[in-house]
């Protein structure tokens, strides 16, 4: 219950920020768009016409393709802009907790430091998950009910998006605990988010390098850092109902998150405030 109140307070704090409200508003707008813009006429159990924004599509057009296409597009949007905004909106949740005068009140409660940190972490992830699942479930439901096409991969894509956010947020948590500076932590996290896709094409970089040790260095970096590009691709594939060749990017990124959280907990435990 004490733990829950920390989660709850984090939740309240996020909602007080306008970013999440804007996020919810945009999601709602997208859902409304689907309600009114997509029309499927069913006659005698067979589709007789499909229209998007009032424009009729050719009759033989594959409905499954439309639904999967839209959901695939949405998951790309969520994976990129969604995660970008979510990181922005949560960037000072950990660092404000550590502010003088604020942290004292948490630490003087009958809760352990591990509970405080994990409560804060889980609260932040929860609000982002809520936002993402809201859009995915509601829009998915509208599309499926209208068309009769049920694409469960879209839901799995949402799970991967939330997990990807969690991985990056774990990194941001560690940075915040070390630096007590939200914006700085956000910037470094963005750097990792945009830098790690470059490591995918490291073979092309190797050609430009003089020493093979650089190669080892980039290989190391690739395996250690979260694999944001591949998880993005994974999200897309899931949404489009394609096979996933390797889950390595996911589990190695989750491992990275666990290590980040472990170090964060250790440092938070040892620090004086």
């Amino acid at each position: 219950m004490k733990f829950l109140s920390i989660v709850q307070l984090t939740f309240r704090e996020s909602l007080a920020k306008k970013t999440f409200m804007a996020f919810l508003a945009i999601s709602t707008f997208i859902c409304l768009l689907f309600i009114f813009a997509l029309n499927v006429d069913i006659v005698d159990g067979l589709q007789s016409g499909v229209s998007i924004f009032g424009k009729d599509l050719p009759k033989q057009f594959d409905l499954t393709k439309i639904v999967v296409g839209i959901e695939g597009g949405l998951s790309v949007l969520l994976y990129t802009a969604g995660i970008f905004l979510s990181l922005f909106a949560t960037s000072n949740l950990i660092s404000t907790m550590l502010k003088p005068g604020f942290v004292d009140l948490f630490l003087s409660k009958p809760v352990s430091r591990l509970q405080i940190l994990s409560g804060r972490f889980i609260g932040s992830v929860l609000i982002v998950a809520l936002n993402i699942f809201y859009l995915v479930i509601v829009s998915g439901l509208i599309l499926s009910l209208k068309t009769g096409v049920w694409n469960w991969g879209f839901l799995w894509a949402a799970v991967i998006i939330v997990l990807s956010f969690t991985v990056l947020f774990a990194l941001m948590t560690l940075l915040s605990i070390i630096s007590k500076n939200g914006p700085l932590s956000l910037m470094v996290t963005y750097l990792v988010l945009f830098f790690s896709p470059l490591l995918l094409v490291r073979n092309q970089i190797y050609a430009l390098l003089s020493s093979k040790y650089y190669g080892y260095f980039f290989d190391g970096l690739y395996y250690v850092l979260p694999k944001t590009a591949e998880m993005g691709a994974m999200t897309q594939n899931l949404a489009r109902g394609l096979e996933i060749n390797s889950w390595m990017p996911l589990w190695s990124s989750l491992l990275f998150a666990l290590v980040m959280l472990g170090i964060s907990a250790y440092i938070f435990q040892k620090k004086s405030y």
Partner: protein
Amino acid sequence: MVVETLELTKHYSKGKVKALDGCSLRVEKGKIFGLLGPNGAGKTTLVKTLLGIIHPTSGSARILGEPISNYRVHAHIGYLAENHRFPEFLNARQILFYYGKMSGLNTELLYKRIPELLDLVHLSKWAKTRIHKFSKGMAQRLGLAHALLNDPDLLFLDEPTDGIDPVGRKEIRDLLISLRNQGKTIFINSHQLSEVERISDEIAILKNGKVLKTGSVEEFISVKQQYQLLFTEGDTPFSEVCAELNIPLVQTDGLFTVSVESDLQLNHLIDELRQQRFILQGIVPRKISLEDYFIDVVGEEAQV
């Protein structure tokens, strides 16, 4: 003992700053304990260390019989932090609710207790006002209500009357006395003597992280009688005589001050001095009060 510290030490900047320097203290149950000291003496560091917010460099301490590393004991402790901050988007009632939950109190109890406490600190009218509109004094009173939420056995108050007007101060003093009479222990940090002098049962003076003196208020006020001895010839060395008679002697700016247990001892000293042909010019009695003592040890800067 409700609070017990043993050689508690906290160093910053690799030992360059000694915020606490071998601090040993004991606080008995049911007492109001005033920790006095100038700004930077280490009072806040001590309280934060006792609450596990700061980890000591060395030494040990116990509160309510438990080692300070045991956070569970915080369920029975109230804390008014110096310059505390609550989330500004919440109102007074919500703050007491969330932070009360964090103390492990259930919803039912909180619904009963929060209005009582808001009433006690005269914030009922502002219960639904977001606290970013609060003045320093109102924030401080909310902090006090927050510290009392869990009906604590031990209360730590760090500069509690900061920003509060004289009438409010008197009310807080009365409140603390009534809490003490209910058997609670109250630990007050202050750099202002006038704030603790009137209500404390015990006082300790802290400076540069060291406890200079502890005792009851009476002990502080009725220190040994002190006299200044004036001699015709400037620097007359009579320290040996004092040492022989076991009389403490302090020499400042050419003034000799002796502390004696009784009039008899003073006369004994004069006899000795006369026998050794010292020429006395005068004997000036110097009453030492707690305030004198405090100013003596902490310097002028503390009396703002």
